[in-house]
Structures are given as C-alpha cells and as structure tokens.
C-alpha cells in the first residue's frame, strides 16, 4: 500500500529529519516529497510505500501523530487511494 504523509504547521528546524526518522525505523520508503512555506506555514507532502513496513498502519499513524503533538504540527498519514478517488476521473 502507498500512503500520503502531510505535515502542516509553523516551520521549524529538523521537521523532515524527524518525520523521515520514524518512516525509516518503520521500513517505509519515501518515493516522492514536496514542500512549500507560505507566510511561515510549512506544508509538506510525502508519498510513501508501506509494502515492506515492519509495523501496522495504525501503529505508524500513532507514532506520527505523537511526533506532531511533540513538535506542534499536524501530521497525517492517509491511504493514497482516497486522493486518487477524489481527484481523478
């Protein structure tokens, strides 16, 4: 399964590092990444592959959520299919 990780919040040092650290520990591969900073709001979207992941989706989600709370940002992970369903004909 592929999923989309979104990170939104006030920009700070080391955000990509901290998110990537969790993904790497969970054996989740980052396939694509893009980010913008608009008026100090950091927005990052990552496309990740979970096929070799060593943990349950819910576990990964909880860890990303906990990181988000720790660094004061919103971090979500969602199945990629929902975006394709909603935005492609």
């Amino acid at each position, binding site marked *: 399964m592929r999923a*989309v990780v*979104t990170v*939104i919040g006030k920009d700070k040092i080391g955000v990509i590092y901290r998110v990537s650290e969790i993904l790497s520990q969970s054996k989740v591969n980052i*396939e*694509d990444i*893009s980010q*913008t900073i608009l008026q100090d709001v950091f*927005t990052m*979207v990552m*496309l990740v592959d979970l096929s070799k992941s060593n943990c349950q*989706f*819910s576990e990964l*989600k909880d860890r990303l959520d906990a990181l988000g709370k720790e660094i004061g940002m*919103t971090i*979500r*992970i*969602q*199945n*990629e*299919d*929902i*975006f*394709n*369903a*909603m*935005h*492609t004909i």
Partner: protein
Amino acid sequence: MALFKDIMETVRMIDKENLDIRTTTMGISLLDCIDHDPHKSQTRIYDKITHSAEHLVEEADKIASEIGIPIVNKRISVTPMALIAGATDLKNYAPFAETLDRAAAEVGVNYIGGFSALVPKGATKADNILIQSIPEALASTEHVCASVNIGSTKAGINMDCVKLMGHIVKQCAELTKDNESVGASKLVVFCNAVEDNPFMAGAFHGVGQPDKVLHVGVSGPGVVKVALEKNQHATMDELAEIIKKTAFKITRAGQFVGTTVAKRLNIPFGILDLSLAPTPAIGDSVARIIEEMGIQHCGGPGTTAALAMLNDAVKKGGIMASTSVGGLSGAFIPVSEDEGMISAARNGHITIEKLEAMTCVCSVGLDMIAIPGDTPDDTISAIIADEAAIGMVNNKTTACRLIPAIGKTVGDEVTYGGLFGSAPVMPVNLSDASVFVNRGGKIPAPIHSFKN
C-alpha cells in the same frame, strides 16, 4: 500521485469543513428467519444479525483510520419486520424490536432500521399489528427505528393508514414524554419509500435486495458552503457548476469507502446515497448554504429556488462520480439536525408551510420538526397527507418525522444533543382537518402513474 494542491484540498475539507462519511449501513435480509414460533424466529434474527455484522464496526473504523476521513455512523437495516413477524400468532411485535435492539447493541451499531410496514395499497393483519406495536417498540428500545410507507405514485395514498399514523406518532411521543418525546424522532412516515436507504430513521432492507449488502451515505454541507464562500460574485449557473464539482469529490470519497468496506466484509456494495446531510455542528449546515447564496435567512423568499438548484447540482455531480447512486440522494432539511435551520426556526424565519414547499424540490420531507404536544392527532394526519401528496404527485420520496413535544408549546425546545440536535417547537396551523382525515379510504394514484 495526486497533485499537491489536490491533497491539501482534501486535508482542508476534513480539517476545516467537516467532510465525513455520514454512514455505512449494512442491509440484512431476515426472510430466512421467518418461523411460526416467535422465539425461534427471534433467535434466528439475533444470530443472523450478530453474525453478519460482526465485523462491520471494526472494518469501518479501520478504513476511516486508513483514509483519515471519519465514518460517523455504523448502522444496520433489515427486512420490514411486518413480513417476518406476520408468521407468528403474536398480537404485539414489540418483542421483535427488543431482539433487534439486543443485536444492534451486541455488534456496536447505533441504530437499526426496519421495524417497518409497507401499506400504500392496504394493510395486512401483520402490518396493522406492527403499526400498533410501534409506540411500545420505540419506547422500550434504544437503537430501533421504525417506518411506515403509506403511499406511492403507483398506488396512491392509503388514507386509513394516514389517519392511524397521526395517532401513532402522538403515542410515540406520549410514551417517551419524560425523554423529550424521543420516540417520535425514531419513526418516519413515508410516501414512495426506497428500499435501499442507508439513512435513519427511515432505513429498511427491501425484499428486492440481496441477502446482505453494504450501503454508504455521504455528507458534506460544510465543503459546499466553503466552495461557495470563495465565489461571492458568481452567477447561479456558475454556483451550480461549483457545487457539481464539489459533490463529485465528496461522492468519490463515499464510493471508495463503500466499495472498500464491502470488499473487506465480503458482501456486495449496494448504493451510495449522496445526500447533503447536515449536523448541528457549526459549518455543517444546509441552511447556511442557502444563506450563502444570498438569502438573508433560510426560509425567506428565494429559499425554495436556491434549494432546488442545490439539490439538482448535488445530484448531477454525484451521478458523474458513481454508478451506484441510490437511496434518497439530495439535500436533507431536518430542522433539529441543522444549526442554520435551528437558528431560522428560533427566530421565526422558517415555518412548517415553507418547509413543506421546500420538500417539493429536495429530499426528503418534513424532518425532525417539533410541534406543540397538544396538536390534535387528526392535524398530524393531515400534515402527513399533505407531505405524501407532494411525494405521490412528484414521483419522489417524501416523509414526515414530526415530534409532538408533549407538555411543550411554541417557544419551548426539545433537546437531544449529538447528531439529533435540538428543535424549537414550531407553530402548526390548527384549522380543523378532522372531517377530511376521518373520511378514510384511498387517494387514487395520479394519472401520470399509468405508464405501462
């Protein structure tokens, strides 16, 4: 990968605009639970429901977590109970409602619909027993919802039953008067009821349906309203186009959820009901969409036209997005469940008569409207007849979910909390309709029903 802006749009819809999947409803046929012995029949019903829906809540929650979109309700609809209980010699079917209630509690769904009778052309003995059992059934259970279909475009309106239903609605309220007359909020009186409706309180599993099926109902008034806010100077046809595109996206989300849950439960996917279903939460209101179009207060002049456009555009966008559109599919205008409607009712901007006009152009009917507790039974029946006539003549589903607020009058409110919200008691035109209602008989089917 979907585009960056598309991903962020979806995230915003969930975060800020209350995008959710309103319900996943499993339809379960109980036709194989029929038995002359009521205990045997009830055991089979309990076993079939608890077995069939064992993993419904778990799988729906899992998918909601994976896609990051909440699935608010998990529900069950069953075969109209009059068809099942009719094989027994019981004179009261409330024990069957209690069986449904226990099964619903066991599998963790919040409502189970199908304590129902379909009587547009006439009632069987079982239909009559079921209807008479409704007040006790709804007062003694927590999760069970009831419905009665009293008319259709093909059959006309069963006025004997319309008369009876005025009394039954009142009794439902009386028996639950210590709990905000909540019984009446769980009873829907339909014309042209559909057999694949996933929304409560009117859901039942029609006999034309498969043994088990998974339906889904989407929502999204908040998303539509925000889309309109960004286009303050658009013409009406431009607004229609915006609503269509938004409805497309919402519907696709629902279609994805429905097909995925069905696949994981290994049952067929049924229909997607693309209704705009409001909640009492701020930013999740159909009334506020109408006001966003430029009507100062929902219920004011222009409301019906605005709603007609909204309803049509939602359908057009949704039909493009899914080949399985069914159920009620339109905009819902329940008073107590819509923050903007509650406000309009409190301030006297909307009346029952205007709501009735609005039901001509949207789904579904006079919904979650509190009326004075001393409203005569015959007046309730006459309101039901009016609403049914709109459905019958316009070839559409209409319904009444009226709540006679026992012990309360205009100016008071009934408060349920949660998705059911609160309803200001609205004034009713008390012109006497008893002679009309007591004529009984049938209103014949309209001329345009003869299409064969």
